[in-house]
């Protein structure tokens, strides 16, 4: 049950108003900078690089005036499953060699082999996950959904030359972000409704058919609910004669300030640096 309740607190996609240097950045710059940091996070797979990145993102969260605790609280519901997986991977990653080297054996006890490589994989994966998770939370809680949409649209403008629907793609992203918390709440309600009717929470690996059936029972109501919401939204957009972004102007046009350029340049150079460091000789 506890795992159901935490779904409501999924703060990805929820704006938290404040006046911080990060809140004031141009959304286009924020998107580009986040992209740069995500690339850096994905490329980096050494202790030093990934831990530095996680630290950097944590500092950025502080600068934005968000509470690190509440940002990390989002991770709680997914923890149990992930911990079990991490443990299994540490124990059975295999491929360890007895000689010294990057893949030397740390512990050997019966069937269990813990190698330096498997520990590295797990630590790096976790640090990366936390960093990327915080980064996305940071992006969505310092930028309103409409600003994100407009920022994405602005970045996708070059696509218009190729006759690709940049505005529509940005709108898809905006709708997804807007409905993420709502559907999370809905999923939680479905899970609780079924639990209260006595649907057991068997997560044993061997109950394949039971697991699959349970999944269908959860996912079909979720889809139906989403579809109802979609129909309502479609009707609302048609009633307001929505006809795309062509020729649309804005009350407050974006103006990039020096801070925006600095943020973009810094994050992109970080991404490049991560790529370079990956192939250098640091531990």
């Amino acid at each position: 049950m506890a795992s159901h309740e935490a779904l409501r607190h999924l703060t990805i996609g929820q704006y938290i108003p404040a006046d911080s240097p990060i809140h004031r950045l141009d959304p286009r710059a924020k998107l580009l900078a986040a992209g740069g940091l995500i690339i850096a996070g994905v490329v980096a797979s050494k202790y030093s690089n990934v831990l530095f990145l996680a630290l950097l993102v944590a500092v950025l969260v502080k600068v934005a005036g968000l509470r690190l605790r509440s940002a990390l609280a989002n991770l709680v519901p997914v923890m149990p499953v992930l911990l079990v997986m991490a443990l299994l991977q540490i124990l059975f990653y295999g491929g360890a060699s007895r000689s010294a080297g990057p893949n030397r054996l740390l512990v050997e006890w019966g069937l269990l082999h813990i190698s330096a490589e498997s520990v590295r994989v797990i630590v790096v994966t976790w640090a990366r996950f936390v960093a990327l998770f915080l980064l996305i939370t940071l992006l969505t809680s310092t930028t309103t959904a409409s600003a994100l949409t407009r920022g994405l649209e602005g970045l996708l403008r070059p696509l218009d030359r190729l006759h690709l629907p940049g505005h529509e793609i940005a709108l898809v992203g905006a709708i997804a972000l807007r409905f993420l918390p709502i559907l999370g709440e809905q999923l939680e309600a479905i899970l609780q409704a079924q639990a209260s009717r006595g649907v057991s929470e068997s997560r044993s690996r061997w109950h394949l058919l039971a697991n699959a059936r349970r999944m269908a029972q959860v996912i079909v109501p979720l889809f139906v609910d989403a579809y109802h919401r979609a129909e309502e939204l479609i009707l609302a957009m048609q009633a307001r004669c929505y006809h795309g972004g062509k020729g649309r102007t804005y009350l407050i046009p974006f103006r990039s300030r020096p801070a925006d350029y600095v943020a973009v340049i810094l994050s992109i150079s970080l991404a490049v640096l991560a790529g370079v460091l990956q192939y250098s000789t640091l531990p």
Partner: protein
Amino acid sequence: MKPYDRAIRRVVIAGLLLAITLLLTFTNVAFIPVPTPAGSATIGHIPAIIGGILEGPLVGLIVGFGFGFGCFMNPLVTAVTNDPLVIWLPRLFIGVTAGWTFALLRRANRRVLAAMLVLLTLLVLYYSYQVGGKILWLGILIAFLAGLGSLALYNWARGEETIVIALAIAGAVGSLTNTVLVLSAAVWRKVAGIGPEVALGIGLTQGIPEAIVSAIVAVAVVSALRQIGKRRGARL
């Protein structure tokens, strides 16, 4: 229906399905524990399949992109590899193949479907003959299972509407696209721990249950949505 209404419908449905995908992958609801080396089967690709079926390959592509992104954020997946060519690229095609399959089959009649089933059975029987040349009992076992499977499929398909059959096939094809492309990408990029034999093992033990689950869920979801959509001018 006005020309832009089609576009509005596409954009909104894609947005909602993308939200479901991200929700399922972020909260790990999408990963069902199974007893295989990979540890968990996924249902995160089902929104992409549904998107492809409901609104065409483009919507499927967009939702598949979101699934790739969600997998990228998930440490269950990135612990194995962090290569975007393995994690992200193959998942773009899930909704596309499902959409195409459904577009091809929705108008097909019973005879075409029966012919396809016969063809598939013959292919599997040929494969079992090949295997039987090396290991006799395994070949006989595969042939037996293939015969049983196609009988069961035929029996099931006789009583259903052709659109339901098309939905089930599209769901299975979308899921198999995921399995086959991700595993071949993993072998191609030489991901640690996944050689050709391991990949084949995962593909059989995990790909087939996943395909069956997504066929069932695709039929269940789309049939439920059809009841609503009929009144509101959806394409189905």
